[in-house]
């Protein structure tokens, strides 16, 4: 594997509970790349992101993420370097936005004070003590982007990258993916609005396999 290759999937198939999600996904992402992922509703984009996040084991084929072979115990070591922002917020509703981020910071060995900086950076300095359950969808989304600022991942996976974000926040997505890419990481963005994506190249997920768009 090329040293600068962060993600490879080779003929990865995946079925869950009898339904086939991926048939033979082939994919390579190099360091410094910003890749868009397109595809119709229900085509398995979210599932593909979870495979890349090492959360789902492929049922066939092989793949490696950040040098860790999928389906082996190597994945545990690279997980802290991956940030997945799903379309449901990975936040505890009963905790405040600040507490949620401090939880992440402490567990990944970052300084918890960075939580406040990151919240300020995404324009939520005044909302740090607000419970996640009382926050709007856009605020939750911004908080999750703040999580990427704290963790500084080598692989950033954004599902529905622009969903629920206003014009300011869309600029934020570009800024944060830009930071990841500049630090020799890679970003994968799922979107329904290809023209809003500022990416190096786009992939399309059709019939369980990946094509260049």
């Amino acid at each position, binding site marked *: 594997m090329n040293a600068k290759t962060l993600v490879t999937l080779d003929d990865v198939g995946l079925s869950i509970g009898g339904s086939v999600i991926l048939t033979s996904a082939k994919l390579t992402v190099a360091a410094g790349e910003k890749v868009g992922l397109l595809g119709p509703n229900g085509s398995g984009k979210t599932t593909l992101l*979870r495979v890349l*996040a*090492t*959360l*789902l*084991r492929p049922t066939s084929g092989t793949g490696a993420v950040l040098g860790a072979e999928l389906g082996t115990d190597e994945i*545990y*070591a690279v*997980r*802290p370097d*991956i*940030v*997945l922002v*799903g379309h*449901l*917020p*990975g*936040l*505890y509703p*009963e*905790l405040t936005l600040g*507490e949620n981020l401090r*939880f*992440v910071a*402490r*567990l*990944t*060995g970052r300084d918890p004070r960075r939580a406040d900086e990151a919240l300020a950076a995404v324009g939520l300095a005044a909302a740090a003590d607000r419970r996640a359950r009382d926050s709007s969808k856009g605020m939750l989304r911004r908080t999750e982007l703040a999580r990427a600022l704290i963790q500084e991942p080598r692989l950033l996976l954004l599902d529905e990258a622009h969903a629920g974000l206003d014009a300011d926040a869309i600029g934020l997505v570009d800024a944060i993916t830009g930071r990841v890419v500049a630090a020799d990481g890679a970003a994968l963005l799922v979107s329904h609005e290809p023209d809003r994506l500022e990416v190096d190249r786009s992939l399309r997920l059709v019939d369980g396999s990946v094509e260049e768009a």
Partner: protein
Amino acid sequence: MPFWAQVREIARKDLVIEIRTAEVLLMTVPFAAAALVLIPFAIGTDAPLLAELGPGLFWIVVLLFGVLVILRKSAVDEGPQQDLVRLLGIDPAARFTGSTVATSLLVLLFEVALLPILIALYNPDLGGWWWMAAVLPLVAAGLGLLGSLTGGVTASLGTRTSLTPLLIVPLALPLLVGATQAVESLQLGRSILPWLVLLAAVDLALAVSGVLAARPLEEVTT
């Protein structure tokens, strides 16, 4: 991050969430207390009888209603929160231990909250009551461990709330035996030690299986 620091983070997160929803304190404790009030209506309100049965009833209420503490919402991460915790790279054993510590503390709180109600209503013999300081935590730890194990196995299943009690209750028998016999030996003036050893042995066996099962348990919902 060191193992025990991770454990502390997870346990603290669980407890903060639990304090804010107050599920155990405001719902489960009153429910169990109501059961303690109701039982004499079924078995009679004869004072010596109640004093004799009291301790046994206490433990059976702790076991059966304690299942509700185990099943509380903050006990298992599901969906995006689970993805988050897994991606933070936490040692699965630390996660298991952390949520077990939280559950055990809540079961202990539950026991301590019920104890005065039992004493007031049933007027049991309080000889050697200080031994409770050892018995209550040992039982709480056992139930917490059993809860994390079975709760992990049934995570995100539709039938979780009915399946988990079925898995817990038969396996909780040694805890029930240890707790009730400890109290009884106190009253009969016998040694309580064998029963404490039994409770500790149960806790140890469950802890070992939990730590060994932690990694496969974590992959359960993928």
